[in-house]
């Protein structure tokens, strides 16, 4: 007995010692140099610049005991940063606020918000995603209106018309969407939306052909796969190639479900197509294009081009497959995979083998214009960053949201610490060395050093210094310098300046041509209260089951007609009629505002 106790104690001791050691390494190693000198440097430069352009400067330094700790929940999967993160501490000293962010784990946004509301345990800041309406209805949010007048950086985020879009039925603003907001001139080089993605090496192998239709796309995959069944990765492992996979895990089944709207040339309204000529709602689940699309997938599945396991893979398994470089192509949103995959490819050497993905803007035969890439800021008024009623000092919270838009803090968030994460050349342009880039691709370093506050107010576009990009990903020099060789060859071959050029969508500002856009900001908020909401829920359940079945069918026509029967039993017309009402309402409001 004594012996056992002794061993148990010993084990416990060793474990705790191990954790302690772990912490030490994580923190002190990185903090010291930053705390020592770089903080001061960063402050001087940004302070000077900010003065020049007439902006608020963050000058006060808060002592440790004055710093307030807030919490934030974002209903999106993300990675938590370490306690005592370098840049988080610097921002805390400058603004007097430290925010602990937590993320969605294994639930959907609506479920997470539902359980937060049910428990009554609210964070200070929240971005509830699809669940914002519920948060508002539960009276858990603090209105922005009084603070908008007080804090100019916040007010500046949107025009009055755009702010009005955020107003709820009581006439007040409770949240602001932090994404897709361009300051000054746009510097966008990325495509953050949906596309048919394809590995660069496939295009290179075929001599960079023009791929415009789904048929051409699958032709190319077939040909490439016929000659390349497997490849050797950088470590010499043989990887079997999967030509095409489809993610349809839970809410991420949009990768399977919504391509028909794009193939017909419409933008991502998400839940329906809006015909701009007649201003009528069209259901993209039942269009001829939808049938063409699914029958093509079915054909490719039976040929063995589509991943046999696509219907049962989880998101994690999907990401695992992509990270080996095995998958040649798929439909997905950039944000759903590329933020994870790009750093992995960069460190594993797969980027140099041409495994990185480029987006293609495909259509069905006969459609010439497409809108896979959305030009112009889309204001998603359905969700955003909010302050909750359980925040004890809302004024401090709003002041913080205002402060982190100050250019110096904004630079800290996205560029990092000058001298450590980026350098400034004689023209005042920010740049990074390859060593810095590599370091910032390292997840461990990122967790201990970088603090984006990525779901709080932020800008895209041009920095207030008038030269640099607000976010490094949009800095032209950074974009090109960061490209792997196969990728930059590909861009050169297609004469493309960036990802949007690869897709080649119509370059109209979406706000000018599609004032109702996007319809998904409405359908994401649906619930059981209306017949349309119930229909929407049932349609989702039905499609979850039938779409994979249709793709895997041995007799497509028969399966498709069974699917259509099941689909029509959900009363999609209830949903479509409501959509039409909403569209009409939005157009009326738009006409009125002109």
């Amino acid at each position, binding site marked *: 007995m004594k012996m056992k106790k002794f061993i148990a104690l010993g084990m416990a001791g060793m474990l705790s010692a191990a954790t302690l050691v772990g912490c030490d390494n994580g923190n002190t190693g990185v903090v010291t140099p930053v705390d020592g000198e770089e903080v001061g440097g960063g402050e001087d430069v940004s302070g000077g610049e900010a003065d020049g352009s007439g902006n608020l400067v963050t000058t006060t330094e808060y002592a440790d005991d004055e710093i307030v700790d807030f919490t934030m929940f974002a209903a999106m999967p993300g990675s938590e940063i370490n306690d005592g993160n370098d840049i988080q501490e610097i921002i805390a000293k400058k603004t007097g606020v430290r925010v602990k962010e937590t993320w969605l784990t294994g639930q959907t946004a*609506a479920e997470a918000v539902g359980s937060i509301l*049910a428990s009554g345990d609210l964070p200070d800041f929240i971005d509830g995603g699809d669940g914002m309406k519920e948060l508002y209805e539960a009276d858990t949010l603090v209105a922005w209106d009084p603070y908008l007048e007080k804090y100019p950086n916040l007010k500046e985020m949107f025009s009055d018309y755009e702010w009005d879009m955020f107003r709820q039925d009581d006439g007040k603003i409770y949240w602001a969407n932090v994404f897709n907001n361009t300051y000054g001139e746009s510097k966008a080089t990325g495509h953050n939306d949906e596309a048919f993605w394809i590995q660069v090496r496939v295009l290179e192998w075929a001599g960079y052909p023009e791929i415009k239709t789904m048929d051409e796309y699958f032709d190319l995959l077939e040909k490439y796969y016929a000659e390349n069944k497997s490849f050797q990765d950088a470590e010499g492992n043989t990887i079997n190639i999967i030509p095409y996979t489809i993610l*349809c895990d839970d809410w991420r089944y949009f990768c399977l479900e919504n391509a028909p709207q794009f193939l017909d040339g419409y933008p991502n309204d998400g839940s329906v197509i809006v015909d701009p000529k007649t201003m009528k709602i069209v259901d993209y689940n039942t269009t001829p294009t939808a049938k063409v699309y699914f029958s093509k997938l079915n054909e490719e599945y039976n040929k063995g081009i589509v991943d046999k396991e696509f*219907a049962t893979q989880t998101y994690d398994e999907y990401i695992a497959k992509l990270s080996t470089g095995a998958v040649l192509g798929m439909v997905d949103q950039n944000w759903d995979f590329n933020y994870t995959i790009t750093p992995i490819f960069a460190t594993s050497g797969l980027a140099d083998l041409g495994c990185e993905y480029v987006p293609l803007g495909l259509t069905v035969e006969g459609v010439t214009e497409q809108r896979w890439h959305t030009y112009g800021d889309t204001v998603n008024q359905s969700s955003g960053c909010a302050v909750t009623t359980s925040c004890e000092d809302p004024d401090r919270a709003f002041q913080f949201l205002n402060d982190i838009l100050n250019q110096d803090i904004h630079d800290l968030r996205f560029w990092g610490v000058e001298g450590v994460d980026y350098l400034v050349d004689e023209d005042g342009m920010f740049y990074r060395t390859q060593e810095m880039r590599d370091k910032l691709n390292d997840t461990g370093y990122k967790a201990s050093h970088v603090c984006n506050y990525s779901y709080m107010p932020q800008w895209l576009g041009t920095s207030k210094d008038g030269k640099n990009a607000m976010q490094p990903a949009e800095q032209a020099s950074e974009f090109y310098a960061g490209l792997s060789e196969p990728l930059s060859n590909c861009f050169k071959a297609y004469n493309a300046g960036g990802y949007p050029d690869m897709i080649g969508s119509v370059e109209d500002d979406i706000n000018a041509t599609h004032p109702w856009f996007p319809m998904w900001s409405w359908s994401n908020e649906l619930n*059981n209260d209306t017949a349309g909401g119930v229909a929407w829920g049932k349609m989702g359940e039905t499609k979850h089951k039938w779409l994979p079945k249709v793709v895997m069918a041995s007799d497509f026509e028969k399966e498709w007609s069974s699917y259509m029967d099941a689909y029509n039993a959900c009363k999609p017309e209830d949903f479509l009629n409501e959509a039409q009402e909403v569209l009409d309402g939005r157009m009326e409001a738009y006409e009125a505002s002109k």
Partner: protein
Amino acid sequence: MAYEDQFVNSGAAGETEYNSQAEVNEAEATADAYVVENYAKEAYEHKSSLNDEQIKQLSKKRISKGELKRQSVLLIIGAIFVLYGILFYYLPLAGWIMAFQNFKLKTGLLHSKFVGFDKFKFMFEFDTFEYALETSGNIFSAFKTWINNVVFVRTIRNTIGMGALNLVTTFIMAIVFAILLNEVKNKLGKRLVQTISYLPHFLSWIIVCGIIHDSLSSTGIINDVLRFFHIVDDSYNFFAHPAWFWPIVAFSNVWKETGWNAIIYLAAITAIDPSLYEAAEIDGAGRWGKIRYITLPSISPTIVILLVMNIGFLLNAGFEVQYLLGNGLVQDVSQTIDIYVLNWGVGQTDYSLGTAAGIFKSVVAILLIVISNSVVKKLGQESLF
């Protein structure tokens, strides 16, 4: 049999004895506390022929002031538990009112609109059933249409189906495992096997499901083995076929819980008097005979009690396993009531609907436990209540 006879005899003897004593008691107006207490106890234990009123009188007398004082500590402890029960089991039931309202967080429990049984109607879609009955005239085919078309009814079928399958498999496996383990003569081996076998119980479902998902995937060990023996040419996708889902869930449960559930049976087996085995051996019973005639009958009270308790949990067929292993293709057989509550209650912020589904589940669970208990009682086995 012998035991029962004995019981009946002693009972009969007891009855006559108490009858005479009761008469004496009636005659003596001032019976002392000890005797009264004894009567009540014996009356309770042996179902004496005292009528209800007599018992009532006897037990009434028990609570004297002195008695209260003597038992004050026990009373306080008892009161704490009663209070706990009221606070955490009965008061929350007030929330059930939600099921009959169109509950909105903004209006709260007190001001939300009452909608009667609307939420239940929404779940069950009785009109689908009625319509099917009218058109087909056959109650079975109507049931079939109902299950095929109404999500909630389907989740009930899945819950009960998977619950029953899990119950039967885990239950039988645990007993078989306990008996087999008991037959192992090597003490060290026995300990080792027992310890290892209950370790999976401490793994969380997310880990177990990860292991199951990996081993059944196209590159997993099961498919590797199947391919190696040329049973299949191309890997078989277990999770794409609805027919495989229930067995996979049952297997996961068996793998995770067998060792843990066997502990209680092992304990029951150790309590068996070794002389019984010796006697059986003298009578010529072999290993099999000893299991059949000594071990199984001796642990049968334990088996029955656990069975009744587990039937109460039948509707808790699970949430995690089905949620983690399920996908669109098998959703018709994978979704349980709990998943329905998550998707349609919490997910659509229709808490009323979630509560209604929860009430339905509780009511069915109570019914199941009462029915199974009375069946067991009828069969003359030990019962829960």
